[in-house]
């Protein structure tokens, strides 16, 4: 029993990072209808830049954290301007493929700059674990969970009350109508990429603190698909819950497969098996908008 409890708690922590990355994904999809296959690479680039600033340039963690966010914003604006904007209105396969091309480019940039070995972040938080329900939990896990809850709170309020957030929702709902009401669609698109890059970088930094960083970090981007499909591609709440649910489910599946059948590495595929089932039953997810087509 304790074994499964531990699995659930680990799942919640990893799931909260999935949620963060999913949040970036959903924000881009909501405002621009672009499916971003390079989300995982944005996570990786953020983690490496922060690592580089803290370890190689010896900056205090907070400074390098903020500089990383500035870097991600610059990167996002560049990407949106140069790569995504020329493809507005192109068929969906082109848009998907351009983000796949982008992910190859980012991956190659990271490997050319930092190599492929695992790099370890210097410990930022204390190492002694807290004890919760008789189980040890590292402080970095608690911080990860808390930080993603905080960011979700901030973004929910942002979309609900700030005029910029409302403008973004309006753009997502109907681009033409929003434009005729004086909303600058192009800056909204750029803004959504910036937010996505920032939350991904934060996810990357947290993850780097937990597991260390290597070139495989980009794989996380794939893990986000089950989470967003479960939650619904265009729902913030869905991204949050989807991430947590997938995190917990894949941990339990992994543990159960090892416990009962002695199968290893089931985690990698469990979330995708769940994904296929969700797609068959509820293609638009728990909270996604159902597209209705009539002739």
């Amino acid at each position: 029993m304790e074994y499964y409890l531990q699995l659930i708690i680990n799942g919640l922590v990893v799931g909260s990072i999935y949620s963060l990355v999913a949040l970036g994904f959903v924000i881009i999809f909501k405002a621009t209808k672009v499916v971003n296959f390079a989300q995982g690479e944005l996570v990786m680039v953020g983690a490496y830049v922060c690592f580089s600033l803290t370890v190689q340039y010896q900056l205090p963690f907070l400074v390098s954290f903020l500089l990383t966010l500035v870097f991600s914003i610059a990167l996002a604006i560049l990407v949106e301007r140069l790569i995504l904007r020329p493809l507005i209105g192109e068929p969906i396969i082109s848009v998907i493929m351009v983000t796949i091309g982008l992910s190859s480019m980012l991956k190659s940039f990271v490997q050319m700059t930092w190599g492929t070995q695992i790099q370890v972040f210097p410990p930022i938080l204390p190492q002694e674990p807290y004890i919760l329900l008789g189980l040890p939990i590292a402080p970095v896990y608690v911080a990860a969970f808390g930080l993603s809850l905080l960011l979700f709170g901030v973004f929910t309020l942002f979309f609900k009350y700030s005029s910029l957030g409302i403008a973004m929702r309006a753009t997502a709902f109907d681009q033409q109508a929003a434009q005729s009401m004086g909303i600058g669609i192009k800056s909204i698109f750029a803004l959504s990429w910036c937010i996505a890059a920032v939350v991904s970088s934060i996810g990357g930094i947290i993850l780097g603190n937990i597991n260390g960083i290597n070139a495989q970090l980009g794989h996380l981007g794939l893990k986000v698909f089950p989470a967003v499909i479960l939650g619904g591609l265009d729902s913030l709440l869905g991204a949050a819950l989807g991430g947590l649910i997938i995190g917990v489910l894949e941990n339990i599946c992994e543990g159960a497969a090892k416990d009962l059948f002695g199968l290893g590495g089931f985690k990698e595929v469990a979330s995708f098996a769940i994904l296929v089932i969700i797609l068959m039953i509820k293609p638009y997810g728990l909270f996604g908008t159902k597209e209705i087509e009539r002739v």
Partner: protein
Amino acid sequence: MSMHKCGLFYTTYAREDGLFPSKFQKTCLALFFAVLLACPQFLDSYVMSILNLILIAVIGAVSLNLLTGVCGQMSLGHGAFVGVGAYGAAVLSNLGIPFFLALLGGGAVAAMIGMVFGIPSLRLKGIYLAISTLAAQLILEYVFLHAGSLTGGANGLPVDAPEIMGYSFDTDSKIFYLILLVTVLCVLVVTNVIRTRPGRAFVAIRDYHQSAENVGVNLFAFKLQAFGLSSFLAGIAGGLWAHYTMYITPEQFSMGLSISYLAMIIIGGMGSVLGSIFGAIFITLLPEMLNLLTTSLGGIAPDLSAIIVPMKEGVFGLMLVLFLIFEPEGLARKWRLTKAYWKLFPFAY
């Protein structure tokens, strides 16, 4: 085909329907094949191995183009279907089944698996279908890795070189003729399927699925057929690959392979058979060109070889992005424009 010479008049309907209606086209094609057949006499085994890989890539790209370019069903799992064919053919031929039967068997297994993963396509479109095929890719990769008794797991599976009537195709030059034969057959199959009733149904589904349904196209049946045929040909490509490389491991059929097939059809031209061939050549040659570049620059910049592996991926991504932005219809369109230019040369109108 809209690229005929002007002044070409048909006297029978059969001739108008022909694949190569003009004598000029037939002559060009015959010359091309004559050169291709003579290749093994003049080229060394390294170049022949690249040629073989290109031919195998052509089958993969043409089959994906049938599914994605012609029928409009995006698949991120094509590399895994190639893998199913490779493992299927390898297991069958290790059981002692003759080469051609094993190849067809591998194709049949791939077709079956492809159709199973094609079932969701009735309810899902666009991004949702792309993600469900991505799931297929990852699930199949897991199976390759963990069905150890059948696939050899992470250690891989050795395969013998193909043998027909006691004649073993064990060198790059010998197997070239075999691969060329199968590739030409596969390309002919796809070209002709596009010209027939199911092919037109595929195009109708791609262009607008509801109108297609209204004019009596059975969406489910035709989508499944597209998935089945495409995966069958992918399986044939995989079977050839297994017999050619004589050793298969799960990493060969990863997500990266699926993405490079998609890149081939995008760079070549969606929905165009000729484009798939161009794309396969381009994407297979790209890393070889980079190798050549680094060896020739080795004296000037010796550090270059350390970053060549990640650089390949970056250049691949860059090519993909540049083509999507500047030439979304791919090399097939460039080819058409070039031909149109020479038709009128030296006049520009």
